[in-house]
Structure formats: structure tokens, C-alpha cells
């Protein structure tokens, strides 16, 4: 691409809090934004390492989140222990197919897509790939946008477990998978925040900025 210069290549640094562009030497002492006082960094410090750590932790927690029990439902006649996937299947079978689709997207599709997308982005940045930076940036923005919707199941479990406490008549209990799943959501959100999309564009400049 012609006529494109990144701020960092010119020794300019955009404040991560107020976005003011100011000059910063690449090897100097920590500099502060003249407008808001935040510490200036050319790129988020330790972005790749932190993002990898959080993504790997999320992959590990994703296993108990899907194998353990998410919700226990008991009444006079029936007793069910549902994982996330069996909960969706049960909703589908009992005819609430719209709700089944919403819960499937929020609790199964979004967390998986988020983890795969972040892994793809991390690999491509580490290999200093220069292909399709625009599409990869768009992928990152999508991950940032949809990540929060995974919290849906946590809210549903909370509301049901709090409301349906009628002793022997009907009881709903949150299972251990809720804790694992909640952690996956929080960790992947932190991973998304730690990832610096500007790293996608740096290979185009043929220079490295790590601070």
C-alpha cells in the first residue's frame, strides 16, 4: 500500500486513554501523555504473551464448562441434570426452538468462534503475516463486539436458580459448569482486550515496535 505511514514509524505514539498523538523516543524513559497523564506505549505491552496465556487458560476451562452440569432441575415428577449442550437439545425437543437457537449461538457458537478467531489472529501476528490485514482487523472487531453475549446463559441460570426455590414442588440449582463457563467468558474478554490489533498491520511497515 502506498502513502501509508503508521504513527509508530514516525516516532509518534497515540495515548491509549485519550488518543492524543504525541512524540515519544523509542528508547527513552517511560513517557506520559501531556493531556491525560497516562503512560505512553507504542503497542500494548506484552500483548501476545498475555493474550496467549488467557486463550490457553480459556481452552482448558472450556472442557469442564461443557462436560460438567450447568443446571439441575427438579420437581415432584422429574429430575434433570443438564450440561450446556443437553440443555439446548432439551429446549429444542420441547418446542422452544427459537430460544434453543439463541442459547446455542450465545453459549456454544460464540465462545468457540471467539477462541478460534483469537488463536488465528495470534498465529498470524506471530508469523508476521502480511496477508488480508483488513479482514483480520474486521475479525478482531467482531470478536470484541459479540464476546459479551456469551454471558446470556449465566444470567438465565442465575434468575432461574434464584426464582424457582419451591421446596419439593420445584427447584432449580446452578451447577459447577456455570463457574467454569463464567470464567471462560471473563478470560476471553480479557484476552480480547490484551490483543493489540495494530500488530496485524506492523509487518507492512517492516519494522518492529514492542513497547
Amino acid at each position, binding site marked *: 500500500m502506498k502513502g501509508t505511514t503508521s504513527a509508530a514509524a514516525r516516532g509518534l505514539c*497515540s495515548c491509549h486513554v485519550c488518543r492524543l498523538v504525541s512524540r515519544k523516543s523509542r528508547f527513552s524513559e517511560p513517557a506520559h501523555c501531556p*493531556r491525560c*497523564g497516562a503512560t505512553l506505549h507504542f503497542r500494548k505491552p506484552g500483548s501476545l504473551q498475555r493474550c496467549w496465556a488467557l486463550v490457553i487458560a480459556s481452552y482448558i476451562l472450556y472442557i469442564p464448562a461443557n462436560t460438567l452440569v450447568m443446571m439441575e432441575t427438579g420437581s415432584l415428577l422429574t429430575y434433570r441434570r443438564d450440561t450446556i449442550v443437553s440443555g439446548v437439545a432439551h429446549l429444542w425437543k420441547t418446542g*422452544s426452538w427459537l430460544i434453543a437457537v439463541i442459547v446455542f449461538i450465545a453459549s456454544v457458537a460464540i465462545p468457540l468462534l471467539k477462541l478460534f478467531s483469537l488463536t488465528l489472529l495470534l498465529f498470524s501476528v506471530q508469523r508476521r503475516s502480511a496477508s488480508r490485514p483488513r479482514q483480520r482487523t474486521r475479525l478482531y472487531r467482531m470478536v470484541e463486539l459479540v464476546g459479551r453475549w456469551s454471558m446470556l446463559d449465566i*444470567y438465565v441460570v442465575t434468575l432461574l*436458580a434464584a426464582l424457582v426455590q419451591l421446596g419439593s414442588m420445584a427447584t432449580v440449582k*446452578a451447577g459447577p459448569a456455570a463457574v467454569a463457563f463464567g470464567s471462560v467468558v471473563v478470560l476471553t474478554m480479557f484476552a480480547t482486550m490484551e490483543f493489540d490489533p495494530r500488530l496485524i498491520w506492523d509487518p507492512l511497515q517492516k519494522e518492529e515496535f514492542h513497547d
Partner: protein
Amino acid sequence: MICLLLPGLHHLRRLRAVRSAEGAILPMVDRPAQLIACHDCDLLQRDIPLNPGCTASCRRCGAVLYRNATDSVDRTLAYTLAAGMLFLGANLFPVFSIQVQGDRSAITLFGAVLSLWEQGMKSISLLVFITAIFVPALELLSLTYLLLPIRLGLVPPGYSRFMRTLQFIEPWGMVEVLMLGMLVSLVKLTNNFKVIPGMALWSFGVLTLLLAAAAASFSARDVWERLDPRSRGETKP
């Protein structure tokens, strides 16, 4: 409409229209065009004045750089104050109640958080409390603290800390997700129980809309520029 930015590095003197406190449009001469680095791809660009309602997006990656949000402070403040009142309603009244053979059970959102805490799911209870109650409340309070003095022509003390907090907590306020969660729970409950929707359900519905409107009209860039001690002719210690 999207105005594309021209690349360039030299500071150009531009004629720029700004709105005075009385609402009249004053031409501000000698304001140098500022440099902007795209937050998604770090491309260096120069800002240009935008027509009201226009958005400037990055020439290279398409990220939204800034908007000319019309009456940003007034509108955001109005939405925030309205949202604050609904937030109280949403937390004081029950979300919904169920009835089984004369047995009636109702919960407020905070009641649900407490109940989960007592059931031993402390981490989940805390997560729900932070994302559904604490962060939205802090967001509304910070916005009011920042925008009310600005509206009155004052500088809120410690504003940069509040702006920073606001930026940090923004992804963690999940009222719209909670709203969908309430609807899903409602449908799940109607399979087995007689469900009575409560006041809070409606309050949360409207609150979701108001928070979205406040987020759409708020412009952090405007606040930073208005409160910048250097442009106000003061020097920072």
C-alpha cells in the same frame, strides 16, 4: 455518510466551525489540523471538520475514528439522567414472579444475586452483581459527574481519572445481555409455571434502549478536547 480522511503529516491551518456556549456557530481560525493515529491499525491521519451526524473512518482499515455527534453533551446527559431513574426502578421492583398452587415467589435482580450467593455460587453471584448492577451504576454516575459540570461550564475535578474508569469498565456493563437473559428465562418458566412479569422487566427494557442511546451520543473525543488544560489556556503543573 462517511468522510474519508486525507493522509498527510504537515499541520495545515484550517477554518473550523465550533459551537459557542450560546449555540451560535463561530468560526475558529488558526486551529491546526490534529494528527490522529487509528486505534486499530496505527495509520497516521489528519482530522477534518465533519458535518453534523457524520463519521470519520480510517482510510486503511475502516475503523471509526471520531464522529460529529450533534449536541453530544446535552443529549448524553439527558439520556443518562433518564437511565438513572429507570435504573432505580429496575433494581427496586421484582423482575418477575411465579405462582404454583398458591405458592408465590418473586425476585428482584439484587435478590437473585443474594440468593445465588447463599446457594454457594459466590463467584457467579459476584460476576452477575458486577456486570449487571455495579458497572452500569458506576457508568451512569461517572457520566453524570463528568457531563453535568461541563454543561454548566465548569471543569469536573479529577476528570481524567473518571474518563479512564469509564473507558475501562465500558465492556463490562451488560444490561442488554441481561435483558435477553430475562426474556429467555421468562419463556423457559412459562413452560412450567404461571409467570407474572414485574415492573423491573419493563424498566430494564427501556433502560437498555436509553443506555444504547447514551453510548451512541457520547463522544469521548469531545470531552477530552473541551477539558484539555492546554486549549483552555492553562498550564498543567
